[in-house]
């Protein structure tokens, strides 16, 4: 197969775009796609400061690389979750992020969850009995809290995550199966900031993870190949597998599903009925000050307090 732009041997074929490209042209195409998404969904402007949440994986490091190549001022944020899984997963992830940042002279913020919360994420899940033996729920809670905190404290204009099209479509599929209209209404490539919440953006939302992986590979980015040891069996992965089967039969099905959803959302399909509040009233957390739906402590601070109490009870 030949590159459509130059006729050289193609490195990747994107069946849904009917587009095959060689390595150098693919490395131009990815930033162009990201820039289109940034502009189309009004994510941020060229003078804005962006905080990129990085995990050491292909998507987030690829995104950081693309934003810097596009000329944006982008710092990184790594959240160490204390996950070992027999492969020193978090240590490996931090090393990848540090190596990436140091090689390019970029600024990387790091948060160590075991120091912040008093326990690693798997320990927190065990101690607080959140998430039915799976730490994914407490992990999501912690990452959202810490990403928002660092973005606000650092005065960043946007918090960017490496969510790709497969991530977005898997979540969309799950929420559609359950008709979770509240979640559907909030799923967007760009969420505007609100008091106490940093704006969130996903510049890779139209790129398949096959494309983000190819980008990382061709750019020589060293990333963590392994999935999080706790991801196995996650519903999200099951949905991805189903959608990949569909994509194999109908190239473009994932992109079409996502873009049709965004058009429907823009047309107001998921607006809450009149009389119902689309955004619940928010209160500042009595402990950390971040917005929370109920007066008092936010879920994150309650979890942290519970961990401390449980650890003290064990010691006694």
């Amino acid at each position: 197969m030949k590159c459509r732009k130059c006729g050289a041997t193609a490195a990747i074929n994107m069946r849904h775009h009917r587009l095959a490209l060689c390595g150098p042209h693919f490395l131009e195409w990815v930033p162009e796609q990201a820039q289109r998404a940034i502009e189309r969904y009004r994510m941020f402007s060229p003078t804005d400061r962006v905080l990129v949440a990085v995990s050491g994986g292909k998507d987030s490091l690829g995104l950081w690389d693309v934003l810097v190549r596009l000329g944006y001022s982008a710092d990184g944020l790594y959240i160490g979750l204390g996950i070992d899984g027999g492969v020193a997963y978090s240590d490996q992830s931090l090393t990848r992020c540090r190596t990436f940042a140091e090689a390019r002279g970029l600024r990387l913020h790091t948060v160590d969850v075991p120091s912040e919360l008093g326990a690693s994420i798997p320990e927190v899940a065990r101690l607080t009995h959140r998430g039915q033996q799976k730490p994914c729920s407490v992990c999501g809670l912690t990452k959202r809290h810490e990403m928002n905190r660092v973005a606000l404290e650092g005065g960043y204009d946007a918090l960017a995550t490496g969510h790709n099209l497969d991530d977005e479509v898997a979540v969309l599929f799950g929420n559609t199966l359950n008709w979770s209209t509240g979640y559907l209404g909030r799923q967007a490539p760009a969420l505007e900031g609100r008091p106490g919440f940093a704006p969130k953006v996903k510049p890779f939302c139209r790129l398949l993870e096959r494309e983000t992986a190819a980008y990382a590979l061709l750019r020589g980015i060293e990333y963590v190949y392994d999935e999080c040891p706790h991801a196995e069996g996650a519903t999200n992965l099951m949905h991805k597998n189903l959608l990949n089967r569909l994509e194999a039969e109908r190239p473009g099905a994932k992109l079409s599903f996502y873009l049709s959803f965004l058009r429907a959302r823009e047309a107001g399909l998921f607006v809450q009925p009149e009389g119902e509040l689309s955004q619940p009233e928010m209160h500042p957390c009595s402990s950390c000050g971040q917005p929370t739906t109920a007066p008092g402590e936010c879920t994150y601070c309650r979890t942290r307090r519970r961990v401390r109490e449980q650890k003290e009870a064990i010691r006694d």
Partner: protein
Amino acid sequence: MTATLILREKQYEVRHGMTVRDALLRLDIQPETVLTTRQGQLITDDVILQEGEVIRLIAVISGGAAEP
């Protein structure tokens, strides 16, 4: 008579002469979930497998809790 496909330390022997894509489908590996490399170079899955060659597949699917 065969070519070798390697995915996550696991080796698959397949008949040469077919495309990588056909080999993947026969092995029940979704082509969307992997990248194909030959001698460290990314290749497209219409490439015909040659006798004795080794193709390394890179899994691209990632999990974890995406935000709703």
